Each structure stands twice: as C-alpha cells, then as structure tokens.
C-alpha cells in the first residue's frame, strides 16, 4: 500500500476528509495515474480548520514540506501546500473566505513553512494564526500595511511614493551583555553580489546569531506574470534567478505543458536535460572557484574561472547564449543539438575531465584550504531536515533526495541518476558534493547525447493547445541548487492567471542562519558562498 493510502486512512480516523483528485484536470484520472510521478500530482482538498492538524500528522508520517503559496479565485483564496515523501508529491489545498481570510499556521509544525507563510501574508493578507514569527517579510515600504499586491483589486502599478523610504523599523533580534556587538551588513554588499541585509550578533570574532532580511530585489514577478502569454511566462521564468535560467524556465514550461496536456517531443526532453546539466556544471565550477577565492586560494579560483569561461563559450558557440537563456521554450527547446555540436560537447567533456584530474588533486593536497573548509559552516543532518534543505546543501548534510532520481521526469526516467550524498555537513562536504555532481552531470550529458544520436531528427517543439480555464500544473525539476517547484494556473484565452516559482534557496537560506553559528565572522563569506543561495529567486 502506498503511503498516501495509509495516510488518508489515518486522516479519516481523526475526521479529516480529503477530496482527492489529480492536478492534470484536462485528462482523466486513469491516464494521469500512468504518467511520470511528477506528471500525476495528487490534489488533496481539506477544510481550512484542519490545516494545522494536517501538518502535524504529515510531520508524524515524515512528509517533507516542500512549498506553499496562495491564489485568489473569485471571492475566495486557495491556500496551497506541497508535500513530498519517497518521490511522491501531494498538493494540499484549503479554501479560505476572502472577507476574513485566516488559517492556522503550518509553520508551527514545519520550520520550512515559516517565510513562505509570511510571504503569503504580505502578498495576500491571509492571516496565519499562531504563526511563530508575525513580522512582515516581503513587504518593506513599497506598499501599505493593509495593501496586498497579489489580490485582484491591487493594480499592477500600485500607488508608490516617488521615493520609497528605507525599511527602518524591522525588529531584529536584540542581544545584550558585556562584549556583545552587532554588525549590520547590506543591502549593498562589498562584493559583486545580490543585495540583502545580514544582521550579526557577535562576541569577539564568534557569531552568536545571524538574521537575514531579504526582499530587497522584490520585482513583482508573481504579479507581472498575470495576464502574460505562455511564451511570455517562459521568458519571465528564465529570469527568476539568472544563474538558473534553464531550470526555472523548464519548471514553468513543465507546469504549463501539464496544464495543457501537451507532451514535449523526446528530442526536446533530451536537449532540456543537456542544457540543465550544462547549467549545473557551469555554476558548480564557478562556485568551487569562488569558495577557494574566499579563503584566498587564488590558484584554484583562477583555474576554475578559466574552466567556467570555456564552458560558457561552448554554450555560446553551439547554442547562441552563454547562460542558455531563453533556450527552453514553451513545448520544447529553441535550438537543436546537431551531430557536430554533440561531438564538440563530448570532446569538451573529455577536456574538462582531464583538467579536473590535474586540478582537484592539487587543490585537495592544499593544507591551508583543508584548514579553512573542514568543520567550518557545519549544518547537521537534523537541522537540514528541519528546514527541508535542498540540493547540494541538503545532500552534504544527509538529505539524500534528488528529483531526477526520486521523481524522475523525461529525460531522467531513461537513465540512472547517481546522487552524491554525505553526512559531514561542512563547507568541505558541500565542496566535494558539488565536485561529484560535476562528474555525474558529465556522464548524464554523454548518455543524453548517445540517446539523441539514436533518435531520428524530429520536432523540437510540441504543438500548443490552449488550456481550459482554471487548469493548472505543477512543474517539479531538479535545478543546480536543488528541487524547483513551479505552479501555473491558466485564466481565459491562453493567459496566465497565477505563477509561483519556489526556488530551493527559499528553504536553504534559513539553514544558512544555523550553519554559521559559532563560526567566526570572517568565515561568513565562505560559508555563504558554499550555500550560494539566490536572492532574486527568493524575493521574486
């Protein structure tokens, strides 16, 4: 018996009744049941009064809280939460009355839901009762306390002041005591990185507490998605987080294709896989170099930056864009992989392997690097699980999960995905997991190319069919930072009614606050780099 059935029975015993269906409402349930796991997400609808109780039982059953968001439909709000266990996802939904929108909080049970509920509160005005942290999150001063940008009656232009004042009255945690001091950092940082604010409490060099205050790059992504064409949404999704343009576009396209019941051509699926793995390798190369740079090991930094540049140049040569932006489009891909391009990539991979075979031992033998990376920035497997930590950050702390292996979608359903997992939880562990992922990705690209060669030349894009009003989809892919969940609902005439992308950073940011505790302030940059969370993907 699947865990879903057992769990449903347990829920019924405590009189929580779920109305179950499938996310793909354009096809009948029987067809949906045959589709890939990420194509048949079960929708469970419960009464709003059971929202928190459900979370308690879900936690007992070891379900992972993966994402949360709301939407307004007519006079009501739908509040959604996505859970996962052993590669099976469920979409939980409760309907909340718009006149007094309130709901019990799941953040009391799942720490991972904390910022998500605060985001939903700021954007929709839905009150989460007994929420452990009632401070605003996404709202600074660009809109009023009683204004909620994602409600239908809030115009996309809003009514902003000529100059939006700084958000000065956010209540950071205070500390008192002899020798305790505070370091405010940001939003404009010293390096070339995205803006955000960090508030450290420290004694001497030791970090006692870190609080992140994000939301500085809130660009209204969810709001401006409304009313777009599907093609327009694919472009916007590619800019949720520029370093993840492939995977975010893929997740959004997958959601739209699911809603419309469109299946992408096998050739397009393989090419999407190649692009996503190329993106993973590019980012890992750059970040491994940047981690070394943050502990002043310039040799490794320059070598890795060199390899990343060569990799990006190949992207440009073969596919026309260094970061592969806009190469994943609605229904497929914008560019084919020719035989010549396939050969070029294979030679490229051989070269990268040879380079890494030289470099990694030289880096590994460096004792000063060892000194800085081992035991620093430790994230325990328990804390990682508590915050639902994803991707290489989670995998370095015992969270052995990868969408590509555990809920495979095309083209990963045709290959064996090896997932690197460790328990060590420090910066070194995240470093090595990323190195192993580079190797695994190179193998995947080779396998995809091999399959591509066996396929006859064919379509790169599926014919689009206008989805029914209210149809929706949930795109779930494994980006280089980990699981991305993208929700899309269609309105009338092929337009987007709701878009919510959940970048893995949203969960990993909170784990970073814990990983830096008891480290020294000067090690914060390298701790931060070893996570490399996205600000833009989180602020939307």
């Amino acid at each position, binding site marked *: 018996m699947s865990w879903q059935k057992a769990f449903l029975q347990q829920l019924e015993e405590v009189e929580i009744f779920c109305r179950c269906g499938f996310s793909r409402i354009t096809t009948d349930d029987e067809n949906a049941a045959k589709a890939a796991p990420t194509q048949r997400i079960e929708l469970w609808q419960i009464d709003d009064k059971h929202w928190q109780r459900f979370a308690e039982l879900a936690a007992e059953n070891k379900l992972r809280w993966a994402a949360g968001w709301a939407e307004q439909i007519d006079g009501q709000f739908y509040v959604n939460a996505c859970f996962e266990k052993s590669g099976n996802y469920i979409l939980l939904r409760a309907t909340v009355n718009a006149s007094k929108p309130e709901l019990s909080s799941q953040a009391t049970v799942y720490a991972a839901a904390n910022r998500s509920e605060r985001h939903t509160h700021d954007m929709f005005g839905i009150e989460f009762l007994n929420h452990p942290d009632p401070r605003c999150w996404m709202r*600074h001063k660009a809109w009023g306390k009683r204004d909620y940008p994602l409600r239908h009656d809030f115009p996309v*232009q809003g009514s902003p002041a000529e100059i939006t004042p*700084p958000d000065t009255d956010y209540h950071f945690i205070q500390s008192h005591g002899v020798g305790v001091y505070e370091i405010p950092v940001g939003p*404009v940082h010293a390096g070339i*990185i995205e803006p955000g604010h960090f508030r450290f409490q420290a004694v001497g060099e030791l970090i006692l507490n870190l609080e992140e205050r994000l939301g500085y*790059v809130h660009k209204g992504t969810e*709001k401006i998605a409304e009313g777009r064409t599907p093609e327009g949404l694919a472009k916007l999704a590619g800019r949720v987080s520029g*370093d993840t343009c492939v995977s975010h576009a893929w997740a959004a396209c997958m959601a739209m294709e699911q809603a419309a019941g469109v299946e992408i051509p096998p050739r397009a699926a393989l090419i999407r896989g190649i692009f996503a793995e190329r993106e993973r390798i590019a980012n890992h190369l750059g970040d491994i170099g940047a981690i070394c740079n943050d502990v002043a090991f310039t040799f490794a930094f320059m070598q890795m930056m060199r390899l990343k540049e060569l990799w*990006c140049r190949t992207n440009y040569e073969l596919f026309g864009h260094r*970061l592969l932006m806009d190469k994943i489009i609605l229904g497929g891909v914008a560019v084919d992989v020719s035989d010549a391009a396939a050969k070029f990539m294979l030679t490229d991979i051989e070269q990268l392997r040879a380079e890494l075979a030289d470099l990694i031992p030289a880096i590994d033998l460096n004792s000063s690097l060892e000194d800085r990376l081992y035991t620093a920035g430790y994230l325990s497997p328990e804390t990682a699980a508590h915050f639902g930590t994803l991707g290489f950050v989670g995998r370095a702390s015992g969270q052995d999960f990868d969408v590509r292996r555990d809920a495979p979608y095309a083209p990963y359903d045709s290959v064996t995905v090896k997932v690197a997992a460790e328990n060590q939880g420090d910066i070194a562990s995240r470093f090595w997991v990323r190195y192993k992922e580079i190797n695994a990705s190179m193998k995947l690209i080779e396998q995809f190319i091999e399959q591509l060669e066996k396929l006859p030349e064919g379509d790169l894009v599926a014919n689009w069919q206008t989805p029914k009003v209210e149809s929706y989809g949930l795109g779930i892919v494994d980006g280089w930072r980990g699981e991305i969940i993208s929700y899309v609902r269609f309105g009338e005439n092929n337009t987007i009614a709701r878009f919510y992308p959940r970048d893995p950073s949203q969960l990993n940011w909170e784990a970073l606050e814990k990983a830096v505790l008891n480290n020294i302030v000067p090690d914060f940059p390298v701790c931060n780099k070893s996570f490399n969370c996205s600000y833009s993907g989180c602020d939307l």
Partner: protein
Amino acid sequence: MMFKLFKKVLTTGIVTENFKAPHDEELEALGIEIKRRIDKKFTGSLAIRAVDAGSCNGCELEIHALNNPFYDIERFGIHFVASPRHADVLLVTGVVSRHMQTALLRTYDATPNPKWVIAMGDCASCGGEFGVSYASCGAVSNVIPVDMTITGCPPSPLVLLKALLALMEK
C-alpha cells in the same frame, strides 16, 4: 603538493586575450550607448562599484567573468571596489526595485564627483522583462542620471569590457 600546482600553472600558460578600445561606430554595433558627452576621460585607472538594484543575477555572472584570466580586466587599471566612496563609476544592474531605491540613491550620493553611471543590461537600460510596477521603478535612469547604457540579457563580458575601455583615455 606544490609540484602539482606549479605544473598546472606552467602547462596552462597565459590564456589572457588582447582587446582594443572600441571605435565610436563599434560601440553602436555592440549595443553600447553614451547618453552624455563624456568630456573628460579617466586615465590609467577606473574604480568601479557594482550595484545590483534588482537584477536576476545574470548580469553579475558576466561581471564576475571580467576577472577571469581571459579578460583579466585589472591589467587595464579597471578594478572593482568595496565602497562607493572609492569609486569613479557605478555599474548598476537590474531594474531598480522600489525596495532598493533609497539604497541606490544613497550609493549615488556617496560616490564622489566626477562620477559616471553605467546601466548594464536590458533591465537597467530600459526595464527589460520587469518594467515599471508597484515593486519596480524600471530603468536606472528613472532613479539616477545615467551616462552610458549597455543592452543585452545579459551583455557578454566582451561587450562590457569594450564599454569600460571606451570610458578611458587611450
């Protein structure tokens, strides 16, 4: 251990490429537009403060690339500084999110005169995919005076390098 390291340094050799400052007609072809007549160019060195005012992080990746050994931007005397007080140029990426508006204005005020502002990328130049909304002021020129725009999503390191060289005395 050091042997492996030195061996790699020696076998890698020098990968740094040669770049020339662009001609005026080349600028246009590269999507670079000078908005204000630059009457006095900086000589010898250019200190840049990068400000992400609401970018998706795509532009930042390409700014980072300028420091890799292929472009090695520091050899031209161009370097990135940690404070606007040390900067000649503000290199601004992204639309200006409303939550970053005050931070950008303060950064601009903190930069000593003479100063130039470069709006890098489609978002910073004209609003890009995000435009003006309740959350976004749109293009950088809606918030502070802009002297040069570089289009592209994101502009490549080569285009960016050429734009910076155009600001310097040959």
